[in-house]
């Protein structure tokens, strides 16, 4: 049986949080690795799928897969350079606060600490794929617990972690908002100033939804909600920066998009792109979580300060609290349909918990809204979607950009529509699904459509018609 009891988890976790306020990793003994060379097979066995033409359609094995299996893949954590040092980032103690003072002097005085860094030292201290609303290290305000406040470079990871505890940060705590519906209220605190916490919105309009709802034989409404989830890649975010004597910086990173990553680095570091080399190493899982810079500018600055290559690898805790996660959606779905199961209207309102910063919310709200009515021929559609700031973990790109959330809603409602009119779930879908040339919610004429084929093929494979609940 699966472990699905969240109350047990929460009780355990609250104990853990009390014991671990500093977010520093548990102290580990320093163990010198034993140099015990492994003899690898160095000949690639002949693989028919890799040697056959034509190449397309072959179940060709992956050359990188063999190296993973032999332990020869160089992930960031496997890469080391002479004189390399290690960086750690101190995270905010509050979900929303003004930073009054950051005192790094005691950390700097520790043996083994080479440099510290605060947000004031980052040449352009903001980034983001659409809105540049996120600081590399917090400036005057922290907006969630994952915000970095200061960084340390030290000769070992352990000393860097210990040094974080010596950094004294004075905060003036501010009111914080955790519920996106509260953040929507007119008199709520504005997390990024201005007159609203709504920072992205999208409307999809087709036909006349109100008239069609009034003309429907049946109208059903339901609200659906989804939760925050993490990408949980096996390899956490990791990078190494090395600033050289020509003022050029080389960065090895687990980032999944190096061209735009270099643009972001050039902007934050105020360097010409030609002075930056960004190398994307083999990544141990991305799932959307590694599509923007994280520690890279911090490491570049620390390398410049220390003259050493600087590495950082997120702890699993860093990965949860300071990398991006999936947007929770609150989704109101109203469908109007006829006695024969034809859906004629769908009215949808989506509220995205947008977290502390924009990140990839623009793409998530766009895809989520366009996909929200589902792969069905519905002539009258209204989708209204809003993303709002909250003082929680930054929500960003994650496998599907809003599609898994809205699919949960539209496919739950399809079954409820089928039940209302007494049809089988397969038949209601086949009746309404897109055909070749169907018009999408944005009036796009669709080609190479295969939704009905997938329904029929899956039902046959499952033996949907022959199934008994026993």
């Amino acid at each position, binding site marked *: 049986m699966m472990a699905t009891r969240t109350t047990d988890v929460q009780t355990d976790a609250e104990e853990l949080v009390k014991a671990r306020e500093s977010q520093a990793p548990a102290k580990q003994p320093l163990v010198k690795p034993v140099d015990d060379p492994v003899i690898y097979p160095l000949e690639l066995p002949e693989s028919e799928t890799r040697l056959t*033409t034509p190449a397309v359609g072959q179940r060709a094995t992956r050359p990188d897969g063999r190296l993973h299996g032999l332990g020869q893949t160089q992930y960031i954590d496997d890469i080391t350079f002479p004189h390399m040092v290690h960086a750690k980032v101190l995270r905010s103690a509050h979900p*929303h606060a003004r930073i009054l003072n950051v005192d790094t002097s005691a950390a700097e005085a520790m043996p083994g600490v080479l440099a510290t860094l605060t947000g004031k030292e980052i040449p352009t201290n903001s980034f983001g794929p659409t809105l540049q609303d996120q600081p590399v290290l917090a400036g005057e305000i922290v907006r969630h617990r994952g915000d970095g406040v200061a960084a340390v470079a030290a000769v070992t990871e352990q000393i860097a972690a210990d040094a974080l505890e010596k950094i004294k940060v004075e905060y003036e705590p501010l009111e914080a908002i955790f519920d996106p519906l509260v953040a929507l209220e007119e008199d709520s605190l504005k997390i990024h100033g201005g007159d609203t916490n709504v920072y992205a919105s999208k409307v999809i309009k087709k036909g006349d939804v109100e008239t069609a709802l009034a003309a429907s034989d049946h109208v059903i409404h339901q609200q659906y909600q*989804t939760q925050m989830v993490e990408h949980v890649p096996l390899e956490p975010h990791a990078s190494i920066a090395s600033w050289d004597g020509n003022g050029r910086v080389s960065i090895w990173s687990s980032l999944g998009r190096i061209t735009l990553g270099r643009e972001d680095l050039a902007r934050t570091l105020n360097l010409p792109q030609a002075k930056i080399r960004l190398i994307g190493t083999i990544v141990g899982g991305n799932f959307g979580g590694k599509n923007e810079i994280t520690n890279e500018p911090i490491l570049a600055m620390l390398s410049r300060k220390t003259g050493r290559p600087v590495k950082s690898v997120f702890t699993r805790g860093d990965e949860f609290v300071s990398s991006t996660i999936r947007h929770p959606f609150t989704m109101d779905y109203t469908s109007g349909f006829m006695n024969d199961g034809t859906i004629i209207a769908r009215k949808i309102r989506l509220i995205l918990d947008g977290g502390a910063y924009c990140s990839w919310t623009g793409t998530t709200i766009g895809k989520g809204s366009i996909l929200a009515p589902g792969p069905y021929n519905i002539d009258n559609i209204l989708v209204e979607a809003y993303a709002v700031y909250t003082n929680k973990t930054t929500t960003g790109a994650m496998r599907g950009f809003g599609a898994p959330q809205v699919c949960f809603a539209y496919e739950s409602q399809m079954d409820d529509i089928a039940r209302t009119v007494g049809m089988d779930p397969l038949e209601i879908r086949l009746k309404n699904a897109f055909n070749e040339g169907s018009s999408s919610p944005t009036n796009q004429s669709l080609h190479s459509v295969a939704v009905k084929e997938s329904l029929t093929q899956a039902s046959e494979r499952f033996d949907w018609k022959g199934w008994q609940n026993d």
Partner: protein
Amino acid sequence: MIKRGRGMACMWYPIGFTVAANASAATVKVNTDGTATLLTGTVETGQGALTVLGQIAAEALGVATDDVHVVSADTDATPMDTGAIASRTTYVTGNAVKLAAEKAREILFESAAPMLKVRADQLEARDRRIQVLGFPSKSVTIGEAAHYSENVLGNPSIGSASYNPPTVEMDPETGAGKPFNTYVYATQIADVEVDDETGEVEVKKIVAVHDCGTPINPMLVEGQIQGGISMGVGFALQEEILFKDGVQVNPNLTNYIMPTSLDMPELEVELVDNYDPTGPFGAKGAGEPTAVPTAAAITNAIYDAVGVRITSLPATAERVLTAIEEKRAIS
């Protein structure tokens, strides 16, 4: 009592966004022995993208997958790429790779034409040879053509190209327009068991049938689907970041519960036979959509088993049991 149920969910997912520039570039160089090197700015993030891109280059050049070495992800050496995001690599970068390989192949054709005493447009590349259309016995190896081109004629076989799904503006009032170049479709069906005394759900089997256009490498598509379903199972039943006063209370793998291999159901994966003329050799994409319909298929199966509609994810044992108890209280 253990109750059994089944549920289905289908989905659509866009490939190749067009609302903003979405370009990829690629360079293909044919070596003088008929092998080749592909330069791409995308990053291998575990999905097998570099293998697929190598297969696309190999197909266009008429060589085998093993003949193409792929160099990736170094801003000092590789061309621009919008990145490993939005299930775009096979489609967008793949189209760029195909165009680049065709340019390199064009140079081989021009050089091989006088060797075979025909025009360049009478040639095709297949089975590691350049041969006259309709007369396969009249041929040279790709290595012979590449050597002649580079070392005799001084015209190395290198092609560079880029691809961008045409950028289209959307109507600001209605959102109307063509926001994506193409879409993929899928259906997943779940078979679950629900314990109506504890609310615990066990997924026994998932049948997943996905469209990705032409599967460049069916094994890697199947791998994506299997991995996507595991994320979908976690989203449906287990995973949730919990907060107390703005602090995550389970930021670790002890208390953030996600599926292990022991939680995974039996998987039956099939692909729809489809071809998209806008994709490289008919391919679309397969990364993200694999995780999309799983949760709805599972919650629809929970309804079929015990008659309760889960409207808030994840469908933990407590949530399912509460819904069952509420239903009993009403009836």
